[in-house]
């Protein structure tokens, strides 16, 4: 085989001259290199030695034989760019999907590596939608909007915000725990969970800022509320955690945020609730999408999900559920004042909210393939804390 000729002219190996040589060697045969860079006679043999290539003088040139050492022998493609495989191996680790992965990379502990358990075909679209819908708390919310509501209604806003912060913290931390276990081969799901977590971080920020707009202290956090969230936090199964958090919890929260939007005493509170609800709707959509796909592949999942609701209900039976202060704060918010007529109206609105939440949960359970009667029974067992 005739050697491939490479003429480096005055290009030195210390300024990129190794690239034409390496490219020629990659063809698999001998390479004859000429060049008149002042240090080529020093650099070329040293470069070859480090790579296991034999080099010899051949007249005014150097003759280089490719090394037998091939880092890429046994390498494999980490699937295809546009299609996730069903069971990506741990040895693909953090490699980009579709990259050529050198053999011998460390196997990472990535237990969420089953496509059926995590994937949703909608993930890429939902991620793109989320990326386009990111809003800046500094400019998207009219922090200086006038507020003329009574002091007690402001206290009610602070209590509701305190409750929202606690719940959104759970909604941030639960997917975070699974994100660290998810095989990054499922890139779109990883990206969607990441932006979902960023959404929650922003919600925690704006709820905190709204709560402290006119008050120096936050409201109450109850043991019952925390017990409800702790049962979410402790759930080790991704499907069950997403079901309880996204489909049931965040689904109920959607109704709550719409309620706050409709009954907000000021433009700032209305904007905070409206923007958070837009984000939460995507979280619910992803939960429904990947669980719907999962149920289609594994119908027995429905029984496990139902059992999880029943188990959680039993575990929380001794707790008081939604704390009275949050309930009362919602009534006062919807009432907007202390007249009997206003309080009656507010109370009716909060009772209607519970019905709206129940309707939403039932519809989502039916979308996951539960029979309407079963969906109604399961929805009734959902935590009284809403999330």
């Amino acid at each position, binding site marked *: 085989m005739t050697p491939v000729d490479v003429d480096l002219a005055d290009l*030195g*190996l*210390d*300024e990129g001259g190794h690239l034409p040589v390496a490219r020629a060697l990659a063809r698999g045969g001998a390479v004859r290199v000429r060049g008149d860079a*002042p*240090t080529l*006679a*020093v*650099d070329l*043999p*040293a*470069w070859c*030695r*480090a*790579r*296991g290539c034999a080099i010899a003088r051949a007249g005014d040139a150097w003759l280089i034989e490719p*090394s*037998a*050492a*091939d*880092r890429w*022998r*046994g390498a494999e493609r980490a699937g295809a760019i546009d299609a996730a495989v069903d069971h990506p191996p741990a040895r693909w680790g953090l490699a980009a999907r579709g990259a050529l992965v*050198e*053999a*011998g990379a460390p196997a990472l502990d990535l237990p969420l590596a089953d496509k059926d358990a995590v994937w949703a075909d909608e993930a890429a679209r939902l991620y793109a939608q989320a990326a386009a819908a990111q809003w800046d708390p500094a400019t998207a919310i009219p922090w200086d909007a006038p507020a003329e509501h009574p002091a007690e209604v402001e206290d009610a806003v602070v209590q509701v915000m305190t409750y929202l912060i606690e719940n959104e913290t759970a909604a941030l931390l639960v997917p975070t725990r699974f994100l660290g276990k998810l095989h990054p081969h499922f890139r779109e799901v990883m990206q969607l969970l990441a932006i979902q977590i960023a959404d929650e971080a922003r919600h925690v920020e704006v709820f905190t800022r709204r709560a402290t707009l006119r008050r120096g202290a936050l409201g109450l956090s109850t043991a019952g509320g925390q017990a409800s969230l702790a049962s979410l936090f402790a759930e080790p199964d991704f499907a069950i955690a997403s079901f309880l958090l996204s489909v049931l919890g965040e689904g109920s929260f959607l109704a709550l945020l719409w309620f706050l939007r409709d009954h907000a005493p000021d433009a700032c509170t209305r904007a905070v609730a409206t923007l958070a609800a837009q984000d939460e709707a995507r979280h619910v959509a992803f939960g429904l999408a990947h669980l719907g796909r999962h149920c289609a592949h594994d119908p027995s999942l429905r029984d496990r999900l139902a059992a999880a609701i029943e188990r959680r209900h039993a575990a929380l039976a001794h707790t008081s559920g939604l704390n009275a202060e949050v309930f009362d704060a919602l009534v006062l918010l919807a009432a907007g004042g202390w007249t009997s007529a206003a309080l009656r109206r507010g109370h009716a609105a909060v009772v209607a909210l519970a019905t709206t939440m129940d309707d939403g949960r039932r519809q989502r359970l039916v979308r996951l393939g539960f029979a309407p009667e079963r969906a109604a029974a399961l929805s009734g067992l959902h935590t009284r804390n809403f999330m």
Partner: protein
Amino acid sequence: MRDLILGAVAYDAKVVPIWDGFLAHFRAHGVPFDYVLYSNYERQVAAHLRGDVDVAWNSPLAWLQAQHAAAAAGRRAQAVAMRDTDRDLTSVILVRADRGPATIADLRGRRIGVGAGDSPQATLIPLGELAEAGVEVVPVRHDVLVGKHGDHVGGERDAVKALLAGEVDAACVIDGNRLAFAREGLLAPGAVRVVHQTAPYDHCNMTVLDDGHPAIARFVEVLLAMSYDDPAVRPLLDLEGLTRWLPGRTSGYAALERAVTRDGSLAAWLTTIGPR
């Protein structure tokens, strides 16, 4: 059979994962292997002569020390293996392109930045060649981690920094480090010229005294069979800087031997080791 003990010098933190990896590989291949790390080559050579270790991963200077000390005691040292990258190295004497001397004769009386005092490649061999050419210079040592025989690149890097700062008129480095320092951004293209390149010499080897341990043949066999194609072994070879192990040879140590004979350092060290 008792373990075959290898001695190596801890010139860098990576030495531990390297030899832990080799340990697993050798044991998996039936060699009862363990290793001991020393802080400097002189202590390793003394331990080898005492029989504390069966095979020593020696610098070229440590090889000469072991060979001469063994010979003085009527014993025999042999180099059983070396890396492909240990063969036919050269060192270069760099000067600044804008103001440096044109030939090695012009280096006479000049300040020459060298590496650690016991570095074969960055000090002893290039200074030896200058002395043989009758060029007397003023060496300016950059003693990073003395006792490790220049295995640590810091001394050469400091010598090049001194050259660029104008503190010395020339700097001695191993050929491959010229490119390495260019990649680091320390040496801009065209910033230095090579005023002298030494004759090729060899670097480290696996040294055995007398007939060695009963498992030494199997040790060498497993070592030489290590393949860069094996993904379990490749990271170790990358860390140790080789693509394959080769049989040892001792033809590449003459220039260093002349240098340490001429400056008396080898004889001086041999008096400290005493009769064995």
